[in-house]
């Protein structure tokens, strides 16, 4: 039996996991990162367009600050987000980007003087200030009032990931590559690490730790077409769910990105539209202004994806053998701009479509892209129900995105949550509570259990083919739990997935019987776990009888705050259950800084909560009174919803800006 002890075990070597690792290391704790692939190959690298932080350096970002970023984030979430968490996030985003600048990310910079941009299909001259020259610049993104998305060309995630991984290496963080956590070790409501399988030689290892962090990203691959990397299969959420104790939040909140290429589903960044690209239909007609006259192509992602789908349903899509699509036109940006600021997009177009985006239109359609749901945690990143288990980044639901994430807020969240959660974990490790009380024989039972499960998969006879079950699951999710949802289809999805779950207990690994590196074995156990996750998504979507953010019910088109201003909490307490247990957590209006309102897209159908009006008047009264007294924006904010005391002390300072527009 191989047991490795450490202070902090981190599952997942993308931006969030690596930032946690460097943070706890800085605080003097040992850290081991388990990763499926070398960290620099994590899906964080695929983030193209940028990272939101309200630096307000460039002309079009002038006047930006935490308040505006906060408002955009909450409206974007359709009031599903935890407002304190969103506040903590917007406050720390400028700190995170500045830290990354000092770690070597070559952020694109403001250049003084005039430059031309394309705004609403027109060339517009923009004059950048002399004093901003050389500071970090930003581009426009959907659903934001200011140009706030900082970038390195369209390889932002790549540059960030390389800088953070290099930092982790400098800090001597131990990285165990190609090690997959397949179950969590826990006893008496306390998590003590994980059983991991070495993907190169099949060895099982128990990692025992004071704190365990899951930072494994999203679960997009439960859909047959996704922009996600092939490793984004939700294994972090699945092993948390399988403890029967940890809970998942808002699993039905799935984002579809408007512009993935057809048919392979590879992303072209929102930066294409942020920089002035247009969406066109089969007639070459720009249709978005008809639907969303104000924000047009730069409405929030969920809105643009729905409008595109509506337009295709009206017969305006371009027909192809892979189904209908629309066009993304970035030719108006000009070759020079594309080759400098959208070079990944250009390479993708050349390599996968054989077209030149400076000349040709790009075939696109909305495609699964992001998981707002995940392991439900407190604002400290700790599971609400399993002590010692932490989670952050896309894997978690702490919950700053609610039912729709803004473009540019995901990579930003990875590093901010990594910064914060590493401090909370370090505090935990410094306390007596973190002491490890688990016997080696108990650890051995966890190891043995996993060994038995793997052995059963390899020795089963007349069993089911994992590939067939997995493809069936992916198809159900695509067809019945997609952009537009309805009760009938969702009920069918749940029933069919439940059937698949029962069949998945009988999976057999055919022919390929190696106990060492064996892709068929990996596919078998991951398929079992993925079907469980798919059920949490489908069941959550079936039960939520309203439309909020990316969860859009044709049979319940209104956002229903009266009944549904709450988070879906899913768990799997008994392993013999064939459906997850679903519970709800109220989102209290009483302490909201920004009480529920109209997002500003389409018709306002909101069914308001009875308490909303009172909170609106209270917020207005407090703000008015303090404004009359000459209070600063920070003082007003603090009176409405204090949050600073929740942050680690080192991150409480005020963010400096040019000309200080505080």
């Amino acid at each position, binding site marked *: 039996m191989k047991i490795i002890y450490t202070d902090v075990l981190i599952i997942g070597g993308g931006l969030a996991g690596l930032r946690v690792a460097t943070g706890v290391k800085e605080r003097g704790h040992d850290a081991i990162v388990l990763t499926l692939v070398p960290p*620099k*190959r994590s899906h964080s690298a695929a983030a193209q367009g940028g990272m939101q932080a309200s630096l307000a350096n460039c002309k079009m970002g002038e006047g930006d600050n935490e308040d505006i970023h906060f408002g955009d984030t909450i409206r974007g979430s359709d009031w599903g987000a935890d407002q304190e968490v969103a506040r903590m996030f917007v406050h720390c985003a400028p700190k995170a980007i500045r830290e990354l600048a000092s770690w070597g990310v070559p952020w694109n*910079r403001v250049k003084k003087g005039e430059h031309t941009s394309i705004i609403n299909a027109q060339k517009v001259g923009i004059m950048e200030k002399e004093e901003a020259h050389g500071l970090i610049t930003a581009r426009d993104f959907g659903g934001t009032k200011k140009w706030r998305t900082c970038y390195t060309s369209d390889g932002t995630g790549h540059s960030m990931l390389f800088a953070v991984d290099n930092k982790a290496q400098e800090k001597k963080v131990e990285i165990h*590559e190609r090690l997959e956590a397949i179950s969590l070790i826990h006893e008496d409501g306390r998590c003590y690490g994980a059983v991991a399988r070495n993907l190169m*030689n099949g060895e099982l290892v128990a990692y025992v730790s004071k704190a365990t962090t899951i930072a494994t990203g999203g679960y997009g691959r439960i859909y047959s077409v996704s922009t996600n990397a092939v490793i984004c299969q939700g294994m972090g959420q699945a092993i948390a769910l399988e403890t029967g104790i940890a809970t998942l939040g808002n699993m039905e909140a799935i984002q579809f990105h408007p512009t993935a290429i057809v048919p392979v589903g590879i992303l072209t960044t929102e930066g294409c539209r942020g920089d002035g690209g247009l969406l066109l239909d089969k007639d070459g007609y720009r249709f978005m202004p008809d639907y969303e006259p104000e924000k047009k192509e730069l409405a929030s992602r969920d809105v643009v994806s729905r409008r595109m789908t509506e337009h295709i349903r009206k017969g305006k899509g371009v027909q192809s053998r892979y189904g209908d699509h629309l066009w993304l036109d970035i030719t108006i940006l000009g070759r020079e701009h594309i080759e400098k600021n959208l070079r990944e997009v250009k*390479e993708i177009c050349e390599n996968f479509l054989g077209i030149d985006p400076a000349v040709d239109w790009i075939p696109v359609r909305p495609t699964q892209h992001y998981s707002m749901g995940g392991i439900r945690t407190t604002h400290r990143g700790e599971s609400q129900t399993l002590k010692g288990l932490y989670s952050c980044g896309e894997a978690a639901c702490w919950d700053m995105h609610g039912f729709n994430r803004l473009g540019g807020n995901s990579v930003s969240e990875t590093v901010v949550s990594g910064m914060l959660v590493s401090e909370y974990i370090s505090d935990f490790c410094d306390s007596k509570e973190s002491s490890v009380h688990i016997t080696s024989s108990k650890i051995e039972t966890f190891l043995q259990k996993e060994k038995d499960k793997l052995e059963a998969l390899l020795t089963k006879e007349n069993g089911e083919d994992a590939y067939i079950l997995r493809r069936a699951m992916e198809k159900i999710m695509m067809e019945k739990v997609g952009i537009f949802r309805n009760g009938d289809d969702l009920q069918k999805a749940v029933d069919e997935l439940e059937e698949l779950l029962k069949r998945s207990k009988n999976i057999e690994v055919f022919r390929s019987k190696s106990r060492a590196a064996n892709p068929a074995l990996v596919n078998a156990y991951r398929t079992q776990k993925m079907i469980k996750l798919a059920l949490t998504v489908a069941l959550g979507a079936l039960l939520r009888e309203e439309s909020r953010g990316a969860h859009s019910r044709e049979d319940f088109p209104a956002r229903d705050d009266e009944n549904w201003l709450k988070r879906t909490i899913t768990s799997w307490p008994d392993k013999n259950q064939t459906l997850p247990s679903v519970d709800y957590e109220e989102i209290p209006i009483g302490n909201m800084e920004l009480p529920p309102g109209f997002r500003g897209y389409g018709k306002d159908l909101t069914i308001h909560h009875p308490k909303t009006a009172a909170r609106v008047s209270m917020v207005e009264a407090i703000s008015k009174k303090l404004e009359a007294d000459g209070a600063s924006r920070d003082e007003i904010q603090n009176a409405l919803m204090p949050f600073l005391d929740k942050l680690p002390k080192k991150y409480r300072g005020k963010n400096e800006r040019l000309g200080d527009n505080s």
Partner: protein
Amino acid sequence: MKKENANRVLKISILRFDPNNPKDFPHMQTFEVLEAEGMTLFIALNDIREHQDNSLMFDFVCRAGICGSCSMLVNGRPTLACRTLTSKLERHITLAPLPLFQLIGDLSINTGKWMRGLNGRLETWIHDKEAEFSFDKLEQKMEPELANEIYELDRCIECGCCVAGCGTIQMRPNFVGAVGLNKIARYHLDPRDKREDKDYYELVGDEEGVFGCMTLLGCEDVCPKNLPLQSKIAYLRRMMIKTSMKD
């Protein structure tokens, strides 16, 4: 895909070997795959694994040419398999793992370990002992053009193609390769890294570094990101010679 190529049956020959299996030995195995429009080697290999041989080992992550996981020899040439369209290849395709890296099995290789070793050796991070970072203050300014130039070199994805395409490394196993030299050029350009010319000279001013390169420049030919490896190696060499003359 061109019309005349429609419905081709591809013959894909793969160099197979499972080092975990004492009975196995390296051998070629050929699979037939019905070509589809827009098919890449990512699609073809997954098709083989799902429908013909579920033990076939290979590595894909982003499948979009961004992460550098899937480098392999395609008809003898190092490249990223995920973004290789089968329509651009002849009907008979041979695939083999990249040489020089530890073989995990079939087409799967351990580039991660090699690259981590390299990064540790060259200390590919910002060195600044005097840095006084404040979470609250404005960031340090940088010339916009310089930021662009650094990003140009920062685009390396550590795929290992340049290493596999390198003649020098065949003779000098500890040679840092174009990937290593490019990283040195990147940090040398970056004013945030306070290392001096002589520090870089210590790292790559020898035959395992820039003076080992025989200028065959296979690296430049095969780099999937079209990094300016040739000019950066030449630049580093001039810089290193100047540095050596100073001492």
